[in-house]
């Protein structure tokens, strides 16, 4: 088990290096002179020059890179042009909203997606299977941002049940906070439920074909217990690893959803950064998100190794 943990920890190092290099490189794929592009069309020569110096673009590439890594190791992601303060601070303020939204959508997704997948697999090739899988297919086909607009139209404008935008931080009341996130979270969850249901169904069919399911039936175990104990235990272990993918999908969706519902999250920060060509903000935000995803995947993999006795004891 310790060996598994160590191996997994070591394997994240190259990914971290790659992620930070890609983020660093982002500013250098800007065609032409990055300083001119970042300063914008109306900028004076002096403004361009000050941006060049601020971002260190006047220095040789290897110096820029070592400065980037030195700062990074100290947790310094630079300063935002538009916000006039450190990027790290801005991210720290906005991360909880995004993580809360993501967590909420995943809490909705897990039971529904798994239940739908199990049901479809167990009733394979019946109308139940066809119906559940058709809905799941619709779920992964409809864009979440469009769905959220339709959600606003129905649940805010027409029915008046939920707010159409705005965020209530948890400090001002958990219920009000959840209410402000409900429509965004469900908009995100629809795609994820479809995804999870499809994966759960495939995994369950695989497990139901295994010999040990036949052994359980041969023992005289009741059908529901065969499924609930022997099938589900083997379905859940691989499904745990899907959580990493779900968080990835949810954060990607949150970029757009936060914009629509005016939620002060990292996604909104990225989009604002892009619209104002605030590159430190863009770099810092996507780096932070990638690091969080690497961390979540690490936790999920370790959890998997812990839950699967074949890996735990080796």
């Amino acid at each position, binding site marked *: 088990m310790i060996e598994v943990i160590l191996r997994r920890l070591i394997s994240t190092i190259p990914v971290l290096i790659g992620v930070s290099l890609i983020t660093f490189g*982002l500013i250098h*794929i800007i065609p032409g002179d990055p300083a001119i592009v970042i300063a914008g069309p109306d900028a004076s020569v002096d403004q361009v020059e000050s941006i060049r110096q601020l971002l260190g673009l006047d220095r040789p590439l290897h110096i820029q890179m070592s400065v980037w890594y030195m700062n990074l190791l100290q947790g310094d992601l630079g300063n935002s042009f538009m916000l006039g303060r450190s990027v790290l601070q801005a991210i720290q303020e906005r991360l909880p909203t995004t993580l809360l939204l993501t967590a909420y959508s995943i809490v909705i997704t897990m039971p529904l997606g798994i239940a739908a997948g199990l049901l479809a697999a167990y009733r394979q090739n019946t109308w139940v299977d066809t119906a559940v899988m058709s809905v799941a*297919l*619709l779920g992964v086909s409809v*864009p979440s941002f*469009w769905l959220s607009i339709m959600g606003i139209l129905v649940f805010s404008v027409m029915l008046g049940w939920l707010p159409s935008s705005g965020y209530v931080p948890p400090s001002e009341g958990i219920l009000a906070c959840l209410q402000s996130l409900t429509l965004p979270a469900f908009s995100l969850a629809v795609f994820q439920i479809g995804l999870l249901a499809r994966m759960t169904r495939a995994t369950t069919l695989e497990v139901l074909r295994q010999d040990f399911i036949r052994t359980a039936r041969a023992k005289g175990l009741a059908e529901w217990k065969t499924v609930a104990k022997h099938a589900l235990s083997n379905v859940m272990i691989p499904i745990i690893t899907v959580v990493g993918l779900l968080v990835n999908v949810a954060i990607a969706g949150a970029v757009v959803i936060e914009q629509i519902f005016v939620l002060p999250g990292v996604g909104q920060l990225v989009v604002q950064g892009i619209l104002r060509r605030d590159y430190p903000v863009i770099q810092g935000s996507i780096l932070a*998100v990638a690091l969080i995803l690497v961390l979540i995947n690490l936790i999920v993999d370790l959890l998997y190794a812990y839950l699967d006795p074949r890996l735990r004891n080796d």
Partner: protein
Amino acid sequence: MTESTLQAVPLEKPRNQLLSRMLSHRGLVIGAGILVVMVLAGIVGLLGLAGDALKISYQSRFVEPSAEFVFGTDHYGRSIFSRVVTGTHLSLLIGISVVAITAVFGVLIGAIAGYFPRLDGLIMRCMDALMAFPPIMLAIAIAAALGAGLLNLIVALGITYTPRTARIVRAAVLGVRNSEYIESARLSGASDGRIIVKHVLPNSMAPVIVDLTFVFAYAILAEAALSFLGVGPPPPVPTWGNIIAEGRDYLVDAPWISIFPGLAIGFSVLGLNLLGDGLRDVLDPRLTSK
């Protein structure tokens, strides 16, 4: 499980048998049908046969869906039907271009990684790093750096989806690399390049074709999201994402502006998903749970 089903399915099926299996797969046929409808709509849009998507008419602003304007009109009096149909060829163009970029680079990178073990580690760690970012976020950042526009959007999405395909190609190549017929080709003196092109790739194509169908679907979804955020081609261009974004401000009074392009996206992506599922069932039965 049963003795009679244990008989191995022959790997190389006769072509007409494959076709008949495709035609008897309901989802695949429906998906292909939707794709055909999309392509026809794209051609109609490209030739401008569905009306002028940019024609402004202040007399006919916010017209509800009616006989004259089947999908209604927007705040400039432009026909939503014309805009959605014209947007189809943009979505198709972007989707196909992204698939082409992904196919070329994904196959190239995946084949090299799978065939040359020495390069495998480095290449795949780079792919892992790219995949550590949420796809839309990475695409936004790249597209933003390159500047708004159709081509940059395509490049950004291509970079974003290449690692997935590369990973699938690599796995497929690893699967066939050590098989006997590759060994015999090597012994008969064929060069690495020739072996890859003549033997390895044809035998690892099935999962790649399936994957590229899904890339097509993701590209359409991602393009819509990026346009919606303002990172795609700028507004008068009637991409589906742009139309939805413009309609947002008039959601209460003219919901049809946003509804119809969204349905078009859903319909197209549904078709591609059906096609992808069907192709997986037919081409790559190992991946299917039957």
